[in-house]
């Protein structure tokens, strides 16, 4: 992404990504985010026809009777536009499971938001897509669980998924909408990265997201079924970097890399509460997808408080804003304004303290143990998937034991 994000003197590019941990990044982010957040992830529902084990949703899925009303979501869109948010990702779960998606898209469009529909596409028909486009939907992103139909359907636990996705992808381009293919990469499909690129070109996609799974929510639970080896990871990253150059002007490839094998942590969300907001199906406003895993934080709800007030004054947003919250080694680190100490939720999940340095950082005392565990898991045969469904959620809701730090 670095090459693409370089300005040429007359413009700079800012990424407003829907992937967990990506958020807002690029040279233009400081200027644009100084005024207001740029991106909003609207998780309209946790209902989903698929059961992917790599899902970054929390284990505890929100029930349908807790979901926000049409009117509240439309109000959120209006408030977002007024406060200066520029892009909205309509996501989930599966956003098309909401029968009122049409009204929400209309509200987003009227509010001047650039709307991205993040969909599994298996339940979308052409008439509905046409209606959404007429109402101002700007962009469609379709996930493919693999390029091999059989493996894709095993990963998503949805028979016949691939053909449906291919149909929807064709309609998207026929309607003149830009198409992104989302490729969630893990050990059980990493060998097909080259074929994902071929598929995206063949479908006429503008973008391909090679999205290495980030280990939050269901994916964290399923890490031993998902994490690729270091060698496979490096090979696939190098391949994508070569293909990017070859496909310049044809296909933009965004790559979200796994951080377990990195030395420096990712600049998670482009910094906590710097440019991105996330709203859960029940209306809780979070600084990132996984923030609810930090149990000490209290989250405000859009039903109780205006969105702008939450952005400016909510305790959860202010908890890790800036650098004052940092402990060592972050506090005195030269990179603290570059990576913001990495990911708070990963620090929480693995070290038990959200203020610790992200263990993906080589300076964290937990780093060695985290990498050792990951490598060990990757070297063994994959564990069976714990599929994302309410039955498994009930079983999995038990406390996670943090790692012990090295001496």
């Amino acid at each position, binding site marked *: 992404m670095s090459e*693409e994000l370089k300005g*040429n003197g*007359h*413009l*700079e*590019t*800012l*990424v*407003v*990504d*829907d992937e967990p941990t990506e958020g807002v990044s690029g040279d*233009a982010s400081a*200027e*644009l985010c100084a*005024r*207001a957040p*740029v991106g909003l992830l609207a998780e309209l529902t946790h209902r989903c026809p698929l059961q992917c084990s790599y899902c970054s949703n929390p284990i505890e899925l929100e029930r349908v009777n807790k979901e926000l009303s049409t009117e509240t979501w439309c109000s959120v869109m209006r408030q977002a536009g007024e*406060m*200066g948010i*520029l*892009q909205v*990702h309509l996501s989930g779960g599966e956003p098309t499971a909401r029968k009122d998606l049409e009204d929400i898209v209309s509200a987003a469009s009227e509010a*001047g938001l*650039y709307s*991205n529909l993040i969909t599994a596409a298996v339940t979308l028909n052409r008439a509905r897509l046409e209606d959404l486009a007429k109402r101002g939907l*700007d*962009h469609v*992103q379709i996930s493919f669980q693999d390029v091999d139909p059989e493996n894709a359907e095993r990963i998503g636990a949805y028979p016949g998924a691939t053909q449906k996705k291919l149909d929807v992808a064709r309609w*998207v*381009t*026929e309607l*003149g*909408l*830009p*198409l*992104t293919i989302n490729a969630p990469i893990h050990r059980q499909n990493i060998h097909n990265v080259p074929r994902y690129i071929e598929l995206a070109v063949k479908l*006429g996609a*503008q*973008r391909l997201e090679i999205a290495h799974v980030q280990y939050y929510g269901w994916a964290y639970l399923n890490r031993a079924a998902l994490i690729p080896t270091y060698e496979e990871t490096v090979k696939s990253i190098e391949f994508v970097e070569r293909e990017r150059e070859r496909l*310049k*002007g*044809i*296909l*933009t490839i*965004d790559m979200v890399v796994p951080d377990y094998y990195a030395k420096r942590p990712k600049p998670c969300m482009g910094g906590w509460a710097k440019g991105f907001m996330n709203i859960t199906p029940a209306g809780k406003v979070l600084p990132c997808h996984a923030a609810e895993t930090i149990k000490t934080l209290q989250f405000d709800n859009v039903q109780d408080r205006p969105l702008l007030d939450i952005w400016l004054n909510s305790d959860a947003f202010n908890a890790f804003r800036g650098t004052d919250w940092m402990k060592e080694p972050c506090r005195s680190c030269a990179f603290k304004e570059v990576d913001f100490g990495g990911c708070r939720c990963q620090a929480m999940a693995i070290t038990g303290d959200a203020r610790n340095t992200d263990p993906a950082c080589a300076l964290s005392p937990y780093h060695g143990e985290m990498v050792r565990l990951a490598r060990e898991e990757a070297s063994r045969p994959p564990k069976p998937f714990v599929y994302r469904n309410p039955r498994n959620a009930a079983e999995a809701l038990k406390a996670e034991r943090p790692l012990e730090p090295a001496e």
Partner: protein
Amino acid sequence: MSDTTSPARLIVGRETRPHLPAYLKLRHDPGRDRWILLAPERVLTPDQTAVAVLKLCDGKRTVEEIVAALAEEYSAPADVIRTDVLDLLQGLADKGYIKG
């Protein structure tokens, strides 16, 4: 050819008639008091020059005509403007944001 399919890299030359695909939105952001270009999961921040160029990318004018229009408007030498415009448009074409 549809805006959403691009089988080959567009090489922007003097005779190219560039246009922005319909799904790119160039608009003024009143809160930030600046122009922005919205694209799938991207926000671009064009400066005044880039905005002037983009507004002329209507699919009818050639690059040479765009250069001539800007040279007149800004009373600047066409050679300098041409290099700048070609560089800007090629950069955008390589991101998939300019079609010709």
